[in-house]
């Protein structure tokens, strides 16, 4: 029996063994098809089997069904001349496959020539080698793929349609129009649709007087359901904001109130549908020089701080919307200065993977934004798009949505700063520095009791930093105080960990707690505490007192 060079699929292998055994006995004969065992066996298969000569492709043997498949009997057909037999566009690939089939197995799909609905055949071929030399014969396993192929084509068509509809949904329902110029800001946005429809949504609301609300969300899952959920989410926010403006007769309802009002409109429905979305809703106030935001489990907002030349990740603490029927939203505030840049994005960028499967990642994006921070907002987005696209070889699994905003406005700021060794030995000196700042900068705007509570909080924060972030190599940390008419911010730039700072419940005094008051005291005294990781282990702690809100309150 001729040796078989390859391990073949089971049914095909069996048949080739049979065919080869027969051929070994009667190498040049066209086998009769009337043998009952071969007939029964062949009839039970959903395919036709044939053995052809490698050159010039003459059919040596074929199982029943061959004529039905090709329209001519095996004795009148030669694979050496495909004209009139095979669709002209597929002839080349079949010829190449048959040529290759002299030495190795192959698989090829092609259409038969003819009018009307194309008939698709798939041939899997196996060389029948002799002594390791090129095959004189090739065994073929031939299947009619017309029905499956048509189903596949219809599926592709349906998917194309879905992508097309999805793209239109995104343009029409999910993506706000950032083309308008907003006074005090340079704004640009981009969306690169992936092959599958996503539920990324963005919107911008002009609050007037250099106030701009920005919203970026990402619905779980893909496809039209995700896009529709995104559209509903965006709509919920638009309506919530308008309703609050109408009820309270204000042009700028608090960010936290907008998110809560939107939650009331949509969270229950999301839970019923077992879906959710992440979101960051923020407000840039150019005159106050402040960015207020609520983060519902979204990717970090990157804040390039021109003053320090560094990029920081802004992250909140709320769960994605749809996880819970309702939640207490925490609003954070971070000062922004002229030249600063905010970069909002969906995880399509950071989760873009290269050929090794390594993700682009947040740290790489942060470096990219920082190193290109001198570009305009549009150019920066182009740069990010280009780099991320190259990294992923153009294959984004998710939509890539991003917004870049550069701040132009400049409120009047007073400031002070001092550098200390990052060690517990600096604790009292740092507290003294903060006391000087509070006495000089806030004596007219805060009561003495409030000032004391702020100093207690600052001491707790410094103590936390020195206790939890002990640098391997001794280094310095930098304390800074900045105050405007609208806010006062106490910064500490240090190296170390960004451990959880948000817990704020008071321990029960009756249980004589030995600890746990530090974070409570910080959060009681401050209106916002953000701990933002930067590059290479740098951390920015920013504790803010919202003087404007306190005055209004």
């Amino acid at each position, binding site marked *: 029996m001729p040796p078989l060079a390859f391990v073949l699929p089971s049914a095909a292998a069996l048949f080739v063994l049979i065919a080869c055994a027969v051929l070994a006995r009667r190498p040049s004969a066209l086998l009769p098809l009337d043998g009952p065992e071969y007939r029964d066996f062949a009839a039970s298969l959903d395919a036709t089997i044939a053995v052809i000569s490698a050159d010039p492709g003459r059919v040596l043997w074929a199982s029943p069904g061959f004529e039905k498949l090709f329209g001519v009997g095996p004795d009148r057909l030669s694979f050496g001349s495909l004209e009139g037999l095979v669709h002209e566009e597929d002839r080349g690939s079949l010829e190449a496959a048959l040529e290759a089939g002299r030495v190795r197995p192959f698989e090829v799909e092609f259409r038969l020539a003819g009018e009307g609905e194309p008939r698709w055949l798939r041939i899997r071929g196996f060389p029948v080698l002799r002594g390791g030399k090129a095959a004189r014969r090739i065994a073929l396993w031939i299947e009619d793929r017309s029905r499956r192929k048509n189903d596949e084509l219809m599926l592709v068509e349906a998917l194309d349609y879905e992508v097309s509809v999805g793209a239109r949904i995104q343009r029409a329902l999910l993506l706000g129009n950032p083309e308008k110029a907003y006074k005090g800001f340079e704004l640009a946005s981009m969306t690169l649709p992936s092959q599958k429809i996503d539920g990324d949504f963005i919107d911008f609301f002009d609050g007037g007087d250099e106030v701009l609300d920005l919203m970026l969300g990402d619905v779980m899952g893909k496809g039209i359901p995700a896009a529709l959920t995104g559209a509903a989410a965006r709509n919920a926010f638009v309506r919530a904001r308008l309703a609050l403006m109408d009820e309270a007769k204000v042009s700028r309802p608090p960010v936290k109130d907008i998110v809560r009002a939107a939650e009331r409109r949509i969270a229950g429905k999301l839970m019923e549908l077992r879906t959710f979305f992440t979101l960051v809703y923020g407000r840039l106030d150019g005159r106050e020089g402040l960015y207020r935001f609520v983060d519902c489990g979204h990717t970090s907002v990157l804040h390039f701080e021109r003053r320090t030349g560094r990029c920081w990740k802004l992250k909140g603490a709320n769960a994605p919307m749809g996880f819970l029927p309702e939640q207490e939203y925490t609003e954070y505030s971070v000062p922004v200065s002229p030249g600063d840049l905010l970069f909002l994005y969906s995880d399509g960028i950071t989760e873009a993977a290269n050929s090794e499967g390594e993700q682009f990642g947040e740290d790489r994006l942060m470096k990219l934004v920082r190193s290109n921070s001198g570009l305009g907002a549009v150019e920066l987005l182009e740069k990010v798009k280009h780099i991320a696209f190259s990294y992923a070889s153009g294959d984004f699994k998710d939509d890539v949505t991003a917004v870049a905003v550069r701040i132009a406005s400049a409120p009047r700021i007073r400031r002070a700063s001092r550098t200390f060794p990052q060690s*517990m030995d600096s*604790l*009292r000196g740092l*507290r003294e520095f903060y006391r000087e700042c509070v006495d000089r900068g806030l004596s007219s705007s805060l009561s*003495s*009791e409030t000032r*004391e*509570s702020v*100093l*207690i909080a600052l*001491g*707790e924060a410094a*103590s936390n930093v020195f*206790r939890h972030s002990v640098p391997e190599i001794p280094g310095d940390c930098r304390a800074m105080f900045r105050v405007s008419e609208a806010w006062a911010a106490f910064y500490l730039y240090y190296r170390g960990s960004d451990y959880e700072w948000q817990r704020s419940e*008071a321990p029960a*005094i*009756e249980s*004589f*707690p*030995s*600890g746990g*008051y*530090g974070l*409570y*005291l910080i959060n*009681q005294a401050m209106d916002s505490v953000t701990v933002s990781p930067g590059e290479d282990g740098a951390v920015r702690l920013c504790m803010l007192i919202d003087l404007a809100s306190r005055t209004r309150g």
Partner: protein
Amino acid sequence: MPIETSDGVAVLTPEFKHLDILSAKDFSGIFGPAAKAERAVILDLSMVQFVDSSGLGAILNLVRDTLERDARIAICCAQPSVKVLFRMVQLAKLVTIFDGKDQALAWAKG
């Protein structure tokens, strides 16, 4: 560190300017044992300008140990900054707090 004992009342007057993470252990080491015999304890904080959460923890330990042996404890003469901390954590739920030392002594002897 002054510890005055008279008629079963111990008056503890820590001389720490800062009762904080750097000095809390010393506070407990000095005043913890001293407060274990008398029927009443007065913590005079007139010399303490600042207390942080670690210092508060040390005070709470003193309060707990005193109350557990059925003795009484009061705090007096706290500086404004320290009073703010006590208000924030509602320390008055556990300990009587007096502005002046005389009031505290009268309460302890009463």
